[in-house]
């Protein structure tokens, strides 16, 4: 019961908070793709893989008081920061087992930019294709972002690093 909620709380707590909705979406997706048992269903949206279920779950956790959502005004745009509350920690301890076998993953992912995570998640979304096709698809759906060859190489290396 509420195990899936507890997993999200556990992840945000392990990551020591997450800044940015897009970032949170992509981090969970990347972890799911490397085998972490998150159950949220993802589809392809504007910024790449996106889960409506995850959005709903985060909003529910905020309503329950287990996650605190803070709006940060960055003058030209607005950003959201998510942190686990004391009640959230109690909830996680009561219900959840740690979801991440390797807690370093949360920190590693959190250290990356939203742009890089969007790139990585999009490449993973097309991981059933050969590498050239994967890159061509990335440029076709994300043309406006002009990802460089270096960024793409770095993203592939990062995926390998996470898998190992």
């Amino acid at each position, binding site marked *: *019961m509420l195990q899936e909620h507890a997993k999200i709380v556990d992840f945000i707590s392990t990551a020591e908070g997450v800044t*940015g909705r897009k970032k949170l979406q992509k981090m969970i997706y990347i972890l799911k793709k490397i085998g972490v048992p998150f159950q949220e269903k993802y589809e392809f949206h504007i*910024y790449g893989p996106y889960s409506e279920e995850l959005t709903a779950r985060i909003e529910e956790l905020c309503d329950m008081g287990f996650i605190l959502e803070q709006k940060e005004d960055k003058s030209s745009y*607005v950003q959201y920061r998510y942190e686990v509350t004391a009640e959230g920690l109690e*909830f996680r301890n009561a219900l959840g087992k740690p979801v991440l076998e390797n807690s370093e993953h949360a920190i590693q992912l959190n250290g990356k930019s939203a742009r890089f995570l969007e790139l990585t998640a999009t490449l993973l979304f097309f991981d059933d294709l050969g590498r050239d096709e994967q890159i061509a698809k990335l440029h076709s759906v994300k043309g406006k972002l002009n990802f460089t060859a270096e960024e793409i190489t770095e993203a592939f290396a990062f995926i390998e690093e996470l898998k190992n």
Partner: protein
Amino acid sequence: MDYANQKLAEEKVFKDPVHRYIHVRDQVIWDLINAREFQRMRRIKQLGTSYLVFHGAEHSRFSHSLGVYEIVRRILDDIFHGRPEWDESERLVVLCAALLHDLGHGPFSHSFEKVFNVDHEDFTREILQGDTEVNSILKKVAPDFPKKVAEVIGKTYANKQVVSLISSQIDADRMDYLQRDAYYTGVSYGHFDMERILRVMRPFEDQVVIKSSGMHAVEDYIMSRYQMYWQVYFHPVARSAEVILRKILQRAKYLSGHGYKFEQPPTHFLAFFDRSFTLKDYLALDEGVLMTYFQLWITERDPILSDLCDRFVNRRLFQYVDFDPGKDYKKLGELAQLFQKAGIDPEYYLIDDSTSDLPYDFYRPGEEEERLPIHLLMPNGDIKELSRLSQIVDGISGKRRTDYKLYFPAELLIDGKKKEIKQQILELLREGGV
């Protein structure tokens, strides 16, 4: 004439209670409708377990798919045709995507996908691109055509205008299912002036927009959607049936993995239990197959499987109470222990379920939202987001509503056995919050 442009000698029509007639002229569309994978959708209900609440809701994904195709056909042939912003060469790919968008749905797909951790969209892609009749028809158009159709359905197609006809906050899929589900459930909400909406749809840059004169018809559509979600799709009794269905599949999987000898072996499910399934295994399933197993499993020796199947087949559903998980998650733990003491397995008989909906959302620049808003085309050619002009839509924009329920078999708690423990359970359930 090449296959892509081949027309039937005479137009074929399907009588349809929602759109009156569904018109088919393209040979490709006709062939796809007759493909076995498309015919399979006749055996999968559009609304899953809702027929246990709204007895008319026995309509299939087959009829919904034809409906989505018909709406897109009307948009393309009657509204977009000849407009410079619309690329006519995309007509066939979008018609095929409309027709085939639900092809990968399985029997009672919501529950099935949860228990077996599969995704109908993966199966849609596999049916389109694998060794199937549908694939061989699409390939006759062009070798890369099946992939293109899959990309439109998967929302990764380069032309976003094409994608938004099938998946957006005002798309052909939603317009069909709202009206069709309203018709078959017999409810009075869910109706809106689709003809008006179609007449004011316009291709514009990389999206489809609505002429501002059609704003009130769109408001009506959004309110219809809101009502249908809460009155039909999230009906607590249909959810009770869904919960039981999920638990049947979960129990069968558990028993199979623990050496239980079924009197009626779950042959069709075995590949899903051990995750060795192929597309062929998936396509061999439909709701008739599942219902046959449920009927036969009523006489299984395992009391839980037998009971759950009897509940589903004979509509002896679980009772429910509202609960607030934020406050009551500890009580849930207590309840689970008491259920255990009372000899009722909480894994199968005490189930929390939540559902939520966001009726409409708009894009806030810089806020990293993911939903494409509905844009209105103003008389001067400007584009404005719907909720900026509509007070009604603004009132419900970005507001998610969530409902939590706790399901349990009420009659087992008043059967006179282990009275004291069951009394404690009932008191906990009656207490505020739970």
